[in-house]
């Protein structure tokens, strides 16, 4: 239908673009974040309604059906997904968005004229395909469908270089000939580059890669806007590309890493020292009763939550344990590492869900000097973020990442499922320290037992 004039269409797209800017602005502050997200959704709705009312469209029933199918799949999954699986879901949505952009550009190839438009087609297809394949690998890594260790093979560097050069050459051919055959080959090469780009990234760095691929998809969408001569796509895509780049750098610096180190570290070799196997050295393991006594008679306890707590859904139990200890006069705080869990802010969200008061959550810089005055540090399902290897062994994949200095504490209790190393795949020396006690088991079970034992004292 062409109900709306070109001027009205442009104005409504402008309104949608403003909504997106306000959405990102809102999402940058805790108070306005939720409203920001709703403004973004409103902008998107406005844009979709506008396109139906302005463009001359055939196949409208089929298009509406496809929209219904997409929503019917995505909305329930998003509503029901476990907290721990949210990063995968974000990566998945990012990947399909990139895939959609690549397909749109490919379908427009026949209608595209002029070298710049064709360059935009090639760019969208290539970057969209990279984002699609790369996101698929991050999902597989986060779901542990494939190993979380960096995957490298001899000569990978050359294969990668070859794939990139081939993609650029084929891209040039697509621009020169406009041939759909070359375009399909370009798509395949894009997928290969995406694969090769993300496979060598170690597990702990995956959230940063998701953010980077998110920015990639943004750029692909911006380029598709050039292809379709649609200013809203250009603005929205560029906005995501730019903010995504800043966000990626911010995340990387929260982990004390550079983005290029994460992406290419494994290629250069040397940073894959995650392959140490589990050793048989003795550790001191204990029972819930002993841990309960340690905690209940301490003056000050700092709890360090990690991914294991999120997996076990133990947030309510640990909140209750903290309240119980505080009722006995113990000073309890939670130490939050910015990248504990599998995404930045994971622990804040998890503990907020269990109504842990905001004042009890301490950030890394605030809590690190306090560890030496702490009687018991209770590490629940965290490993990499307290691993002193980040400070002491330059070869480790996490070397240089700021950590919670729990080794300064007087006594350390680890609640762990097993001796398995953390997501980064490196063993933690702290587990063998004489002042460390281990309590094996599912975090929630262990916490329930400890809580019961504290109550029985």
């Amino acid at each position, binding site marked *: 239908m062409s109900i709306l004039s070109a001027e009205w269409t442009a104005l409504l797209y402008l309104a949608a673009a403003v909504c997106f800017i306000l959405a*990102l602005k809102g999402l940058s502050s805790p108070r306005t974040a939720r409203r920001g997200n709703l403004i973004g*959704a409103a902008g*998107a709705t406005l844009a979709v309604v506008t396109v139906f009312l302005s463009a001359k469209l055939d*196949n409208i029933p089929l298009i509406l059906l496809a929209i219904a199918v997409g*929503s019917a799949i995505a909305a329930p999954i998003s*509503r029901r997904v476990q907290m721990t699986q*949210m990063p995968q879901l974000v990566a998945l949505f990012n990947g399909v968005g990139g895939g959609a952009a690549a397909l749109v550009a490919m379908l427009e190839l026949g209608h595209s004229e002029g070298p710049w438009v064709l360059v935009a087609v090639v760019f969208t297809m290539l970057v969209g395909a990279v984002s699609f394949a790369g996101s698929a690998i991050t999902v597989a890594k986060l779901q542990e469908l494939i190993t979380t260790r960096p995957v490298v093979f001899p000569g990978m560097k050359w294969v990668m270089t070859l794939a990139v050069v081939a993609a650029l050459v084929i891209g040039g051919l697509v621009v020169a000939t406009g041939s759909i055959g070359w375009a399909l080959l370009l798509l395949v090469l894009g997928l290969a580059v995406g694969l090769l780009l993300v496979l060598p990234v170690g597990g702990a760095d995956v959230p940063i890669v998701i953010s980077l691929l998110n920015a990639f998809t943004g750029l692909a969408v911006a380029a598709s806007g050039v292809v379709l001569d649609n200013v809203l796509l250009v603005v929205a895509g560029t906005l995501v590309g730019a903010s995504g780049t800043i966000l990626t750098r911010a995340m990387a610096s929260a982990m004390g890493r550079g983005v290029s180190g994460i992406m290419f570290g494994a290629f250069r070799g040397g940073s894959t020292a995650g392959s140490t196997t589990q050793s048989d050295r003795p550790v001191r393991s204990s029972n819930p009763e002993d841990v309960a006594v340690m905690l209940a008679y301490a003056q000050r306890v700092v709890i360090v939550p990690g991914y294991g707590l999120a997996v076990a859904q133990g947030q309510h139990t640990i909140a209750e344990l903290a309240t119980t200890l505080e009722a006995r006069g113990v000073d309890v705080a939670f130490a939050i590492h910015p990248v504990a869990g599998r995404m930045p802010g994971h622990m804040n969200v998890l503990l907020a869900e*269990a*109504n842990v008061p905001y004042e009890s959550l301490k950030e890394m810089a605030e809590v690190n000097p306090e560890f030496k005055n702490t009687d018991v540090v209770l590490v629940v399902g965290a490993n990499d973020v307290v691993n002193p290897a980040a400070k002491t062994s330059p070869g480790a994949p996490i070397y240089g990442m700021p950590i919670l200095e729990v080794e300064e504490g007087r006594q350390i209790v680890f609640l762990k499922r097993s001796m398995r190393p953390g997501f980064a795949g490196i063993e933690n020396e702290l587990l063998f320290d004489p002042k460390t006690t281990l309590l094996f088991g599912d975090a929630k079970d262990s916490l329930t037992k400890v809580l019961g034992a504290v109550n029985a004292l």
Partner: protein
Amino acid sequence: MDPITLLTVIVLTVFVGFEVVSKVSSTLHTPLMSGANAIHGIILIGAIIVAGQLDDPWLIAVALLAVALATANLVGGFVVTDRMLGMFRGRKPAVTSKDTTK
């Protein structure tokens, strides 16, 4: 759009993009990433425009796939971001979120 106007729009948008997220606490990194992820789902309008111009059934099928994927990105992105942010709400007026989780 002529190339110069286009370039102007892109350059200005890049600065806006840098500016709006320049001072964000690490707590909000993930919801912000997720929100930005939802926004690029707007490729949906591109997919709709393309799907509405085709005649060949196979090409229409490909375009409809793009529409469905883009919708998943857009709808799922906003819903999952809202859920993440909903969990933050439990801090101060901590009444509503507890009922739903138990």
